[in-house]
């Protein structure tokens, strides 16, 4: 097929009534064919399945982290509750000063300490 025949075929393929399957077949016969490299499939599978292993490891790591965080958070909350109860029992109230470990008469000492008077 010469150049002008190829050009006509290309233009013809854009007519709505064109037999596009036949055009594609004939063009392929004329050397208009496209292929990936021979090891294309192998490359794709290697990328997918090696990435899959990494992904699984990441998922496991996140799962363990969540589990560890859950246990640490529970222990932390329990410690805070015990601390609050012990402050209440020792100080008899849950004011800011008692939570910070300050007695009311400390205020003046702190002011003196900060101002130097």
């Amino acid at each position, binding site marked *: 097929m010469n150049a002008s025949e*190829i*050009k006509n075929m*290309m233009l013809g*393929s854009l007519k*709505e009534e064109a037999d596009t399957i036949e055009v594609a077949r004939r*063009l392929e016969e004329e050397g208009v064919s496209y292929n*990936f490299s021979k090891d*294309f499939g192998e490359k794709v*599978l290697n990328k*997918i399945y090696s990435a899959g292993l990494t992904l699984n490891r990441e998922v496991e790591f996140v799962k363990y982290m969540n589990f560890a965080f859950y246990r640490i958070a529970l222990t932390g909350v329990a410690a805070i509750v015990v601390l609050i109860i012990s402050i209440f029992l020792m100080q008899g109230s849950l004011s800011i000063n008692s939570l910070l470990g300050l007695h009311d008469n400390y205020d003046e000492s702190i002011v003196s300490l900060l101002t130097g008077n």
Partner: protein
Amino acid sequence: MSSESYSAAEEKELVKASLDGDKMAFGEIVNRYQKMVARTVKGMLGDSIFAEDVGQEVFINLFYSLNEFRGESKLSTYIQKIAVNLTLNEIKRRKRFFSMFSQKANNEMYEFEIADRDSEERREAAEIVNKALMAMDPKFRIIITMRMLQGYSTKETAEILDLPLGTVLSRLSRAQEQLRNILVKL
């Protein structure tokens, strides 16, 4: 499954086996559809090194979205849609990148490797088709690729490109005009 049964298996079976982690089943899907993807990707991007990377991306995306494939359309249509989207994204990415350089640099990226052609006439045919395609506006190029290289009808082209039939028809007539002008210069 033996290697023969993979090649004889229906696409639904291959999809199911792939979802169950059967590497060979997904390998068969790649083997079956890689030529079709190559026509779309290389037809749109030229026979460049980037085309192969985009081709690989198509199958990687397919693998990770396989559980969303409901089997309502053909697997080939589903793969073709992924190929079209990724190819158009690559064209946009290139356009942004090459807008920093001259038009000449852009054209140089579209040089083709036409190897192992067994005659001068065949080499010339491939060169005319590729040069004409690369000279076209991407929105027309995709329509020509679908029809001329893949052999899809107007309706199938509209379905794959997610465009109304009327839009495809109007682009077809404008593509024809643009192609005619390009072919005169080749």
